[in-house]
Structures are given as structure tokens and as C-alpha cells.
């Protein structure tokens, strides 16, 4: 089977790419003057590991039938997806300036028709996991050997349809499905614990029949290991509960619900890029 070689050579390189993606998405949201930086930053290491190490994909052939599929069910975090698709070569770098603009490839929420590499349209929460079930079922019926990766938000698990899919996937014996739950603990209005608590998450998914793993979603080695290990968990579907920090990498955004859905101004953007680069040992000027 043909797959393109992973782009990253090692964990250190993946961490560097994750920092570049964080810079790109902060810039993108700043230019657009709106968007959702918090949940994009919390997911950045997970998305980087998928696109630069784990998934069997070929950016030159976005419609290759045997490609792994990624669905971002928490669609508002699409800047992190777009940044990864740009870095991985699905989209040109000029797209960075066009998020949410008229006629842009980069819509405010994912659009599978407009954007190469986007596998499923999203924007209303609670839908993506079920679509992942359909893709995983299609692989079985068609005899194709791909895996489906679905990222859901933790607040998103307040949607009832998530639990319909959570019940169905183990019963349908979908062993080619990995869910990554971005456990950043904050939803639009406030901390999840202050709105509608969702714990015990691991026990809930386990009782529904899932193989549950729990990791630090910012420790790249753990992230890669867990994603790779999820391939071997048959006959169950797998959920990786990735404990993350909303706004990760930008001090004033971290753990602050305000940055769920607000764009940084010029000064804030400059500070954000400085911090992200400093932590990764990069120069801001080099991340372009």
C-alpha cells in the first residue's frame, strides 16, 4: 500500500511543527479578526501528530480511497486544521490571509466541498462522530483498509447525539475508529464544571464499550504513542481522552474562557508569537 512518508523525523521535530502551526493559527485568526483560538491551540499537538506522523495520507491525492480520514467534529477549531493542511501541503500558504473572507477556501467552519483535505462539513456540535461511524462502516463494506480519526470537544459531549454514536460504535464493532477527546475543560461561556459537568468521562465511555486511553495531550511522545496504539485495540473502537489546556502556549489565553471565541489584536498577536516561538526555541521571523 502506498503512503507518503511521515514528514516529521522525531518527537522534537513534531514539537517544532506544532509551534509553527500554533503561530499560523494565531496569525490567521488575528487577520480574520475573529475565530476560536482557545480550542485550536489546545488541539494543536494532537492534530500535528495525526498529520505529520500517524495518519496514512497523501496530500497530493486528497481523494485517495485508502487514505485515513480525519473529522473535526468541534468544527469551530478549524484554524488548527487549516494550519496543519497548509503546512502539510494540501493548501497554499496564501490561504492564511483569507480565513472567513468572501470566496475563500477557508470557511468559518469546515466545508468539505470547498477545502481540500477537509473530510466532513461541520459547524453544529455533536454530528461528527456519527459521520465517522459511517466512514468506518464504508471501509468495512468496501473492503478498504483505512482508519477514521474523529476529534470531539469535551463540552461537545453535552450533545445527546454524541451518546447515540457512542452507543452505536461498539455495537457495530468498529475497530477502525479512534476518537480523540480534547479535554480542555472550557466551553463557550465558562468552565465546563460551572455549566454542565461531564465527569466521569472515562467511566462513561468504558461502560458504553469503548477502549479508553487517557493522556497528556501536550506531551508529544505520549500523543504519538497513544494514537499509534489505538490501531491495535480491536475489536473495540478507541477513545483517547487528551487532557489539554485551552489556549495552550499563549500565557494570557491559557485557561481563560474569553479566548474560546475572540481574536487577538496586533500587540496580543505579537506577544503570542513571541511566547510560542520562545518555548520551541524558534525565532518569530523564521516561522513564516
Amino acid at each position, binding site marked *: 500500500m502506498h503512503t507518503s512518508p511521515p514528514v516529521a523525523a522525531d518527537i522534537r521535530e513534531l514539537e517544532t511543527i506544532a509551534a509553527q502551526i500554533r503561530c499560523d493559527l494565531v496569525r490567521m485568526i488575528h487577520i480574520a479578526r475573529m475565530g476560536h483560538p482557545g480550542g485550536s491551540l489546545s488541539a494543536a499537538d494532537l492534530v500535528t501528530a495525526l498529520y505529520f506522523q500517524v495518519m496514512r495520507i497523501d496530500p497530493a491525492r486528497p481523494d485517495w480511497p485508502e487514505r485515513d480520514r480525519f473529522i473535526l467534529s468541534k468544527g469551530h477549531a478549524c484554524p488548527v486544521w487549516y494550519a496543519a493542511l497548509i503546512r502539510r501541503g494540501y493548501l497554499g500558504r496564501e490561504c492564511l490571509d483569507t480565513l472567513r473572507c468572501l470566496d475563500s477556501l477557508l470557511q468559518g467552519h469546515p466545508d468539505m466541498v470547498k477545502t481540500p483535505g477537509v473530510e466532513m462539513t461541520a459547524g453544529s456540535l455533536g454530528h461528527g462522530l456519527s459521520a465517522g461511524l459511517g466512514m468506518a*462502516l*464504508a471501509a468495512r463494506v468496501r473492503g478498504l483498509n483505512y482508519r477514521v480519526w474523529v476529534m470531539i470537544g469535551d463540552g461537545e459531549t453535552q450533545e*445527546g447525539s454524541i451518546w*447515540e454514536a457512542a*452507543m452505536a460504535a461498539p455495537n457495530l464493532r468498529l475497530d477502525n475508529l479512534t476518537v480523540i477527546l480534547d479535554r480542555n475543560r472550557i466551553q463557550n461561556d465558562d468552565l465546563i464544571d460551572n455549566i454542565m459537568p461531564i465527569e466521569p468521562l472515562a467511566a462513561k465511555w468504558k461502560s458504553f464499550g469503548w477502549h479508553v486511553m487517557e493522556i497528556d495531550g501536550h506531551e508529544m511522545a505520549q500523543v504519538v504513542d497513544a494514537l499509534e496504539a489505538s490501531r491495535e485495540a480491536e475489536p473495540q473502537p478507541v477513545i483517547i481522552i487528551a487532557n489539554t489546556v485551552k489556549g495552550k502556549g499563549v500565557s494570557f489565553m491559557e485557561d481563560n474562557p474569553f479566548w474560546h471565541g475572540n481574536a487577538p489584536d496586533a500587540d496580543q498577536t505579537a506577544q503570542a508569537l513571541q511566547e510560542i516561538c520562545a518555548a520551541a526555541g524558534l525565532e518569530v521571523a523564521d516561522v513564516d
Partner: protein
Amino acid sequence: MRTRRETRHVYGEALLRAGESNPQIAVLDADLYKSTRSDLFRERFGERFIDMGISEMDMVSTAAGLAASGMIPYANSFAMFITAHCYDQIRIQICYPNLHVILAGSSAGLTQGPDGASHQALEDIALMRALPNMRVLVPADGVETEAMTLAAAQEIDGPVYLRLGRYPVPDLFDSSYRFALGRASWLGQGSDVTLIACGHTVSAARDAAELLANRDISAGVVNMSSIKPLDEDAVRAAMQATPLIVTVEEHSILGGLGGAVAEVMAETGGNARLLRLGTRDRFGESATADELLEKHGLTPRGITDSVVQALGR
């Protein structure tokens, strides 16, 4: 006496044929396969039949995922549940990306009968018609049901809503019938009134035309089975042919067939008047199908009386 068939039964048999001719066909149900008649497909093609349990939202989204991965899914439930219960999923995951998913809404309309208002879809055409990319098809008899069920997979590439009923209807067409998306069929021309109907009310409209003939009223009958895209030329032709147009549907007069015809007539202009027959912005209730059709003036006699009154005869 002509054969009477429930369109939902014909649909179940046609699904089986669709499955035989195309390995891409998959069928999903939400704990109603005995009623939607997808059980026929289930028995034959178990590996391509997915029972999602009582979870219409999950079923419709799963169908979107199947369609995005090279399958052609038919998803089944009662008309009310497969349209209203999962409208958000249909809108964002099927219509917005223009995915080839066929939603079959069974037991639609008043003739769902004794289960009452909760189960009687009287807004489903309006809901589906408002969505970009969606096609809305309402077959008038068994022959058309079979043709539409197969065409939905073979001749259309995109979302389809197929509205089916449990009221037995006589076959109006024979084996020469050919389905064409967006094209109405005429069951007779008239000079006083044109009855434009869909679903089993086409049969009622045709019988009404005979009753009207006894009163020297010349009535044409149009089967507007493709509500979206609508055959606008047929509406305009009816406006030329007769001074009165009457729409007949087992659905609210708001936003369905009557609404669609009203939009064309208003933009076209001219002297033809419109009367919309259907449910008048109200919910249904428990009763037999025939009692409800009688109550809402959708029997041949009820249609006849409305036409006579509108013409002032």
C-alpha cells in the same frame, strides 16, 4: 377493480432491486424496519443493512459518512422523525456538502391515522423544500414509487427526500411510465379548473375530476410528484389553460405543494386564481385515514365541493 398498493411497501421491494443492481447501496433504519419495509433489504443484504436503533440523528449523520466514503445510503424512518428530528444534521452534513443520501419518510401525512398528531407529518415537505440542494419527491402510486426509488440512486447525485405513505393507492400509471426529475405528468386537461396534486391525493383529484365532469365542470389533473425541483412550466401552462388552479396535498397549505405553486403564480402574474387544499395551519389528530381525509376535505367529494364553491356554481 385496480390494484391498490401502499407506496411504503413498493419502496421496500424497490430497495431490494436497487441493492441487487448496485453494491454501493446501503440501507439504514432506526427501529422501524418492519414498517418502512427495509426488512426486505435487511434479509437479503445484511452486511449492507445498518440498524442504528432509535437514534435518527445518529442514523442520518452516519448516512452522510457513508455517502462521503463511496456508498449510496437510503435512510428510513417515519416522515416526521426523519425530517424534523434530525433537521440540523440533514442541513449541515447532507445538504450543505451536497451528499448523495436518500431520506425516505414513510407513513407521511394525515393518513398515518390513529397514532395522531405526533406521528402525522404535515410540515415535512416545507422543511425539506427549504434546504438548498435537496430534491423533494412525492410519488402518486406504486409504479411511480418504484421508478423514483431506483432513480434516486441511479439518476440523481445529491440529497433526495422521498415521501411515502401507508394509504393504499390504485396504480395510475403503467409500465410505460418514465420518471424525469422536475417534470410533472398530466392525467387530463381541463378548461375550468386544474387540480395540481401530489402523493395519494393525485388519485383523489382524478376521481374529483370525474365528479366535476358530471356537473359540467371541465377539470385538468396534474401529478406534481417532483415538488423540488418544481415543474414551473406545468404551473404556467395550467395558468394559461384554466382560470382556477387548486392544489391538493396531504400536508399543510403553508410551504408545501400549495406554497410552491403560489410562489410561481405570484411571480408569473396573470388572472388565474389559486385555492390551496390541505391542512390549514393546524395539527392532525387520531382517527382513521378516511375520517381525517373527509374532515380536511381531501376526498374526491371534498375536493369537488371546494371547486364548485370557488367557481361560484
